[in-house]
């Protein structure tokens, strides 16, 4: 069991130690402690580099010391003639004697005590990212205000996530900007605009200073913009490397700023605004849009007006105009509206006359009526020809939509009356 202190004496101490002996002591104190090993008596045959007899102190595979000869204390107030401070809780002490001693040597007396290690300062590696607090047998890390200690209990990060930006315009900056941003942090923000708007990010090149990429081009710290189906970044370096204006085409954007353990830089700031989603201007043939604009955006409503002679067929009815609204997905609500030529249908028959079978009954087509000659004639000479009009009616220049009239020819017998003169 590890103990907090102990004594190590060479064999037969304080009598002469035997020849040809090798004895090892494994010293262990509790975790979190170092060992203070000190000698109060040392009387070992001297040789060059303590080659013959010696007491050797090894900790962690490293020889901390090798002693031989006779020593006395230089400090009259202290019995310690040699001491070691081992920043480790284990060490090995090995006493070795060769086959012959010309004189009598009494060996050594050593004591060890567990001593507190200042983990915060005694090691080359910094154990805490920010503040290190030493205590007897251990240490703990702590963080500055607004930072929190990561689960590894060593590194501090900033709790920078969670902000959701819903206003149509705004400015977002990295923590502490323009002061150095925190290491070991992952900041997740979200811009969440209403449907129909896309987030447009505007970054000035000089407003971006993030730890540059490594030799492989991987960003150590990075800023990323993520939408449902696209990803912009990761960006890093001094000066923004991406486009200065990013049209995300999405009303929701996640902003992820990730930093590693080191390399704190100034950070970044950017502005964003919500730009209404635009719908394509796709005026279908034979129609006009009102109002006419160069660009149509979310919530814009247009009236699709068919040109004369064209109509929008909806089921069994038809109309000459329709409305369509630019939707939040950038598509028109009535994307299938098409203006088709008005079809006047088959012209109506008339009594005592006929109408020629039209090749076409669409807008602009013409048909001709005739009367059953010679017994009927057309009441209005000019009323023979009808054109398919924009309102779906066959129209004559004189009669309008009224059908032509075939009236009987009067006073013309088909056979003369011949009467022999008396």
């Amino acid at each position, binding site marked *: 069991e590890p103990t907090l202190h102990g004594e190590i004496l060479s064999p037969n101490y304080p009598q002469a130690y035997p020849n040809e002996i090798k004895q090892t002591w494994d010293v262990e104190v509790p975790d979190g402690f170092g060992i203070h090993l000190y000698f109060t008596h040392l009387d070992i045959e001297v040789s060059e580099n303590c080659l013959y007899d010696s007491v050797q102190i090894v900790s962690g595979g490293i020889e901390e010391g090798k002693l031989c000869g006779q020593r006395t204390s230089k400090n009259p107030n202290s019995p310690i003639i040699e001491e070691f401070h081992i920043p480790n809780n284990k060490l090995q002490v090995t006493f070795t004697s060769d086959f012959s001693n010309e004189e009598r040597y009494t060996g050594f007396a050593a004591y060890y005590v567990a001593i507190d290690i200042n983990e915060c300062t005694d090691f080359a590696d910094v154990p805490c990212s920010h503040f290190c607090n030493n205590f007897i047998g251990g240490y703990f890390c702590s963080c500055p205000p607004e930072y929190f200690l990561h689960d590894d209990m060593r590194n501090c990060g900033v709790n920078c996530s969670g902000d959701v930006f819903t206003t149509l315009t705004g400015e977002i900056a990295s923590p502490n900007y323009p002061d150095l941003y925190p290491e070991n942090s992952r900041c997740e923000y979200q811009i969440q605009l209403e449907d129909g708007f896309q987030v447009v990010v505007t970054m000035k090149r000089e407003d971006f200073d993030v730890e540059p990429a490594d030799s492989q081009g991987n960003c150590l710290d990075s800023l990323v913009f993520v939408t449902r189906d696209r990803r912009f970044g990761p960006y890093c370096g001094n000066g923004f490397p991406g486009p200065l204006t990013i049209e995300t085409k999405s009303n929701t954007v996640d902003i992820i700023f990730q930093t590693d353990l080191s390399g704190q830089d100034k950070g970044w700031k950017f502005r964003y605004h919500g730009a209404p989603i635009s719908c394509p201007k796709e005026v279908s043939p034979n129609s006009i849009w009102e109002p006419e604009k160069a660009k149509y955006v979310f919530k814009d409503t247009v009236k699709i007006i068919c040109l004369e002679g064209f109509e929008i067929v909806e089921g069994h009815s038809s109309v000459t105009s329709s409305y369509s609204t630019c939707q939040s997905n950038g598509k028109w609500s009535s994307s299938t509206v098409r203006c088709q030529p008005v079809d006047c249908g088959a012209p109506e028959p008339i009594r005592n006359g006929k109408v020629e079978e039209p090749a076409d009954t669409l807008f602009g087509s013409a048909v001709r009526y005739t009367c059953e000659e010679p*017994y009927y004639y057309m009441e209005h000479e000019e009323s023979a020809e009808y054109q398919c009009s924009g309102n779906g009616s066959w129209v004559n220049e004189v009669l309008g939509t009224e059908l032509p009239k075939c*009236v*009987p*020819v*009067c*006073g013309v*017998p088909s*056979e003369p009356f011949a*009467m022999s003169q*008396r």
Partner: protein
Amino acid sequence: IFGGARANIESFPWQVFFRSERAGGALIDEYWVLTAAHVVDRSYRPTMYTGLTLLTGLHEKKDQMLTAERIFIHPDWQQVTDPSSRTNFDNDIALVRLKDPVKMGRTVSPICLPDSLSQYNFSVGDLGMISGWGRTEKKDSVYHLRGAVLPVTDLELCQEVKEKNPKVHPKSYIFTQNMFCAGGAGVDSCQGDSGGAFAVKKSLENSSRFYVFGLVSWGIKCGTYGIYTNVQNYVEWIRATMANNSAPLQD
């Protein structure tokens, strides 16, 4: 018809036969027949035929039968209790509105209505044509249509005709400007021809057409001179009546 000859209906395609009254009429429109008032003043729904030359087998000629929808007797025509003693034939004109339109063709077509303009005027000596299935010199009625050509004469000639009618004194007949006299040389209309057209050929606007200037009205003695209703005096009434009653009668 006195002094006439057999005629085909193609020569008088406007000729309408009134079956029960055995009288005539003139087709002036698809829906309208012009006749004398005395033909229809006791008949509310006369049966008529058109396109006939021969009057045989009428019951088989349904497609040529015309059905009256309404009768319009001139408002100034005076009704009498005993038609045989009538002496006043002034305003002897009536219109029959047909239920269905007449289909025109070779045997059926209307006669033109004159206008009141001077170019439509006619005068003594102008020839006219009459037709009908009425009495002839030999028969009280005929089956074959007959026609005749006769001149317009002075009204006095009609006034001078003497005939013994036991019921009517010759002097009591009334002559007005709504009548004209025509005939002579034995050419005349007679009983059964009433209501038929006195047709006059006029050449106007580069076309030669027959106009109904008169309707067979009455006469004192067949084979002399006959009195015809002067249609020209009634053109406005005819046109107004037709225009005001052009829609089918609602039940």
